[in-house]
């Protein structure tokens, strides 16, 4: 191996050699090959046979033609800490590796090994003198250097970081704040306090938005490591940051809530949420972070904070609920006893955006059956007028999920105020049952419980009314004179077909199957036979029986019989307000 390394180095093809060996390792699934390669590379470098840092410097600007940069970077990340090198050469190599990685999140894989190199060699202070605290390009390297210094001696690390925070270079301040959040100060109360005081000063002292955001993130990091006696300082810092928070600070808050909010107190969560919820619609990245944050907080049981963050985002039209996949998914993961109150809260809020979110949430639930709720309202917890308001909102927003809507109405009939029962029962029949006399009727028949159940008489009466209504429809019998003509039926069929084709094309475009599969059109048969080349180069036969995927939904009857009236009725339910 050593000879091969030397030969590759001599011919200027060391990167390609590293790539080839790494590929071999992947193919053979033999981890020892990587170890052997790393050991030989370090030895060759440290003994002066090759200069790996010089080779690394050639990778900047994407000059690693014919090889895979990420494989090379992986190898470098595994050996940098062990290389003997001058600080300047090492800095140049790490910078080159970062630059070659571009904006990819994996671009900085060599950074921590670089920090470890500084710790191993004691070169951190020397490195610091070679970096430019006024340059944004060096922020990451300065932060790593401060970390290395702090690992040697936390006090010195804090001193140096505080000095940089106190200076006027924003890049240096950012680097220091980044670093200070990573210092392990858990054993030193005084240092912790000093760091937080400095970060607080930075957050409230007219610093750039990005500095404030990173200072806030650093303070949260410190608090997480040393939760005792640091919350008050953290809250003060967050309060100060809230006064000046711009997009960077808001983004940092969202990220913090997403990734680092586990174990934070309700007070801290509330303070961070208060900043994050100020996000603007144009900051799509931050909205994405908030989506993830809400999802994570729901999973962690931080539901109040999650809703406090999510609801303003929806109400202020910062994002559509359909765009918040993580939050939606996490909500649907909740137990019905937890999700039900959220749905009620949103419907009772009177906000159309929250009502729409409820509709989308229930609509997004791709389960075996519809989402249903069994909610105990308790007769004293709600006024009759509120119950009717809730029922109308439920119908307005959940109309196309009739069983879900009916489940809420049945809960109201069962445990809600008796004074509201007649109005709620009427809504259960019209517009719900009258529109969805198929699936909903069957579901309701299953809900008939013992006579002592307060909902039972209302359900029985609603079903009886439906039966009478349907009998009335059947009694007409065929009236061919009222049917559309053959020509009109043909036109309508063509329109339907065209509309289905458009929908089919749109569905194809957004289908995940389109991303993972090759599209092939089969003109005949219900079985596909094809050949493909296997890893060994042999032709392999593949035979696949084709199946069908079908789905169906019940169209609301009144959408055909009196569409304008139905639309108007639902609009009224969705838009009406409860006056006090």
């Amino acid at each position, binding site marked *: 191996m050593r000879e091969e390394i030397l030969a590759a180095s001599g011919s200027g093809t060391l990167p390609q050699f590293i790539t080839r060996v790494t590929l071999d390792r992947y193919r053979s699934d033999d981890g020892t090959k990587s170890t052997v390669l790393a050991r030989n590379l370090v030895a060759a470098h440290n003994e002066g046979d090759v200069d790996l840092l010089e080779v690394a410097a050639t990778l900047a600007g994407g000059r690693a033609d014919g090889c895979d940069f990420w494989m090379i970077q992986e190898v470098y990340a595994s050996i940098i800490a062990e290389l003997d090198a001058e600080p300047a050469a090492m800095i140049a190599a790490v910078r080159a590796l970062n630059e070659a990685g571009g904006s990819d999140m994996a671009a900085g894989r060599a950074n921590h090994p670089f920090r470890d190199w500084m710790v191993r060699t004691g070169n951190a202070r020397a490195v610091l003198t070679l970096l430019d605290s006024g340059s944004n390009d060096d922020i990451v390297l300065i932060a790593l250097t401060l970390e290395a210094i702090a690992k040697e001696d936390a006090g010195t690390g804090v001193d140096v970081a505080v000095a940089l925070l106190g200076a006027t270079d924003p890049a240096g301040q950012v680097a220091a704040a980044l670093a200070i959040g990573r210092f392990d100060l858990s054993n030193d109360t005084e240092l912790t306090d000093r760091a937080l005081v400095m970060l607080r000063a930075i957050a409230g002292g007219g610093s750039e938005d990005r500095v404030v955001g990173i200072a806030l993130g650093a303070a949260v990091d410190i608090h997480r490591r040393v939760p005792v006696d640091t919350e008050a300082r953290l809250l003060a810092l967050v309060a100060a940051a809230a006064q000046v928070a711009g997009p960077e600070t808001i983004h940092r808050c969202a990220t913090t809530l997403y990734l680092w909010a586990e174990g934070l107190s309700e007070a801290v969560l509330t303070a961070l949420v208060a900043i994050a919820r100020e996000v603007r619609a144009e900051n799509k990245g931050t909205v994405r972070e908030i989506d993830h944050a809400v999802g994570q907080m729901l999973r962690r049981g931080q539901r109040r904070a999650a809703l406090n963050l999510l609801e303003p985002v929806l109400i202020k039209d910062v994002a559509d609920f359909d765009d918040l996949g993580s939050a939606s998914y996490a909500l649907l993961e909740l137990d019905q006893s937890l999700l039900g109150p959220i749905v009620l809260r949103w419907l009772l809020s009177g906000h159309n955006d929250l009502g729409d979110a409820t509709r989308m949430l229930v609509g997004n639930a791709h389960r075996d059956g519809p989402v249903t709720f069994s909610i105990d309202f308790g007769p004293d917890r709600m006024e009759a007028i509120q119950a009717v308001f809730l029922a109308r909102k439920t119908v307005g927003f959940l109309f196309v999920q009739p069983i879900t809507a009916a489940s809420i109405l049945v809960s109201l009939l069962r445990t809600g105020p008796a004074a509201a029962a007649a109005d709620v029962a009427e809504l259960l029949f019209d517009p719900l049952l009258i529109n969805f006399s198929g699936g909903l009727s069957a579901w309701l028949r299953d809900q008939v419980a013992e006579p002592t159940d307060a909902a039972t008489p209302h359900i029985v009466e609603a079903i009886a009314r439906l039966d009478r*209504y349907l009998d*009335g*429809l059947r*009694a*007409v*019998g*065929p*009236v*061919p*004179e*009222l*049917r*559309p*003509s*053959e*020509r*009109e*039926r043909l*036109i*309508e069929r063509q*329109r*339907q077909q065209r509309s289905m084709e458009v929908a089919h094309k749109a569905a194809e475009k957004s289908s995940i199957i389109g991303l993972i599969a090759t599209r092939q059109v089969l003109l005949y048969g219900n079985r596909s036979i094809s050949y493909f080349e296997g890893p060994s180069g042999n032709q392999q036969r593949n035979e696949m029986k084709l199946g069908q995927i079908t789905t169906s939904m019940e*169209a609301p*009857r009144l*959408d*055909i*019989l*009196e*569409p*304008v*009236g139905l*639309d*108007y009725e639902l*609009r009224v339910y969705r838009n009406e307000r409860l006056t006090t």
Partner: protein
Amino acid sequence: MKLVIREYLTSLRERGELDAVLPDMLTEMGFTVYSRPAVGTRQYGVDIAAVGDGQDGVRRVHLFSVKSGDLGRQDWDTASPQSLRPSLNEIRDHYVTTRIPPEYADLPIAICLCFGGDIAEQVRAEVTGYCRANTTARVTYEEWNGDRLAQVILDGILREELLPAALRGHLRKAVAMVEEPDIAMGHFARLTRELVDAGDDAPDRLARARLINICLWILFVWAREAGNVEAPYRASELAMLQVWNMLKDVLPGRGVRARNAGILFNELATLHFAIWDELYAKKVLPHAAVRHALATAVQSYAAIDVNLKLFQTIGRVALRGLWLVWEVPGEHSLPTVLADDDSDGIARIDTLCSQLVEIIANNRALLSPATDEQAIDIALVLTLLGTRPRFRPSIDQWIKELSENAQIAYLTHGRYPTTRTSYWDLVEHPAERTDEYRKSTTEGSVLYPLLALWAVATGNDEARDSIARFKAEHLTHCNFQLWLPDEDSETSLYLGDDNHGAALGGVPVGEGTTATLDYVNRECATNNHFDRLSAIALGHWPVLLTACRHHRLPVPPQIWRDLFPSLLAARAGQMAAGNVV
């Protein structure tokens, strides 16, 4: 062709049907019909009495006792009043001896056993025996069965010179396609139009009108057997209008020809009502009070189909009601408010009005017109309801809801009333949810001014003001208009020819004013073309409304000339009595 007619004759169900067409058949054979059937009565067993040459060339008095369908044992000699033998006895014992008009007293007599089908074998011997036993030197018996009647029709009304082979083809095709009304109607329309355009000779016109009548009968009976009378319904409206156009200059006369023309038009109207009964009285109106029953009966997944059929239905029902209004005795040349009384006519009108209100209440698509031209059907319903004071609240409510729903649909880019009429356009309407598209499909309207005019005339200030605001805020691009007949209309109106009449544009609707009514009244006061229309001049205003409904022309506002003052007076009376808020 004979098979078509034979089947038609066999399928004539009721006694009133065969004896309704028989006089025309006899007239075309050269007979003089001196006694026609009167509803519910027979003259000593005789349904029709006529004088003419028999098959042997001998001139006789022919006394017809008519029975529909086949003649079986039940029809021959039972206690039923429809039984034939007792009728024949009555003719022999009473009519022959006492009822023959003096001028025909010397003529031999043929008693005709007339039925659309055949004699059943089990009674043939009895019938033959009866006829032989009662035949005398003066009185003979003849069997006019379906075969003979079919031949009579072919040799008479449908004779080659009146109905050439090409036109017979249209009749056959119309009959064959009764279950596809558009196609059947297409053939029937071509058949009748050619008959209408065949010439101006007056006697010939009467013969052609009879031909149209019998063709319509044939179409109706076949369609009834098929269970779908949509084609004959449309055909009957068209036939009535075309025959009106053919005979309108004969009708005002005083001679036999005028009387025959009147009888013929009356027969056509009666047939039209029979078809209406078959469809609406039997199939539709019994379900008026059942929620969504009629909308569901359309059996379509397209909301536009339901909407179109429902508005068509109320338009047709209202038109029938207006014919009943016309039949109410009194001094009124146009629709007017009818006083309450105990007559059957008023009771029937009130029943129809109630059923219309029920249809609207139970099929609320009727609150949301999809096309502007549905103003025609709405106008017919409003006119009918307007004649009966007890339905004023329904008018107020309906106008308000029509106006509100149209506005909501417009503001939400829903299914607002469009000026487009092609089914292609309607089924996709609104094709775009853009202001530009919406504007392009609402550039003119007869619907909103109609509602505003009625709102003013009935004192419905809320609806009027709502339309006025909507016009000012959202419909400034829309030309509110009404249609009035002009000097070309008389020649085109009944036949449905295009491009006649005048659009009265710029109809104003102002909050708190009667500007709409004033504007219309001013024009109506100076425009005399309406009164020159034959339908108006001859006192047959439902013919004009039939033409408007059938040919999809807006109802001209002069039709309410007598009605509106009564409505306004009633409103003023209510206000004076403090019954209006």
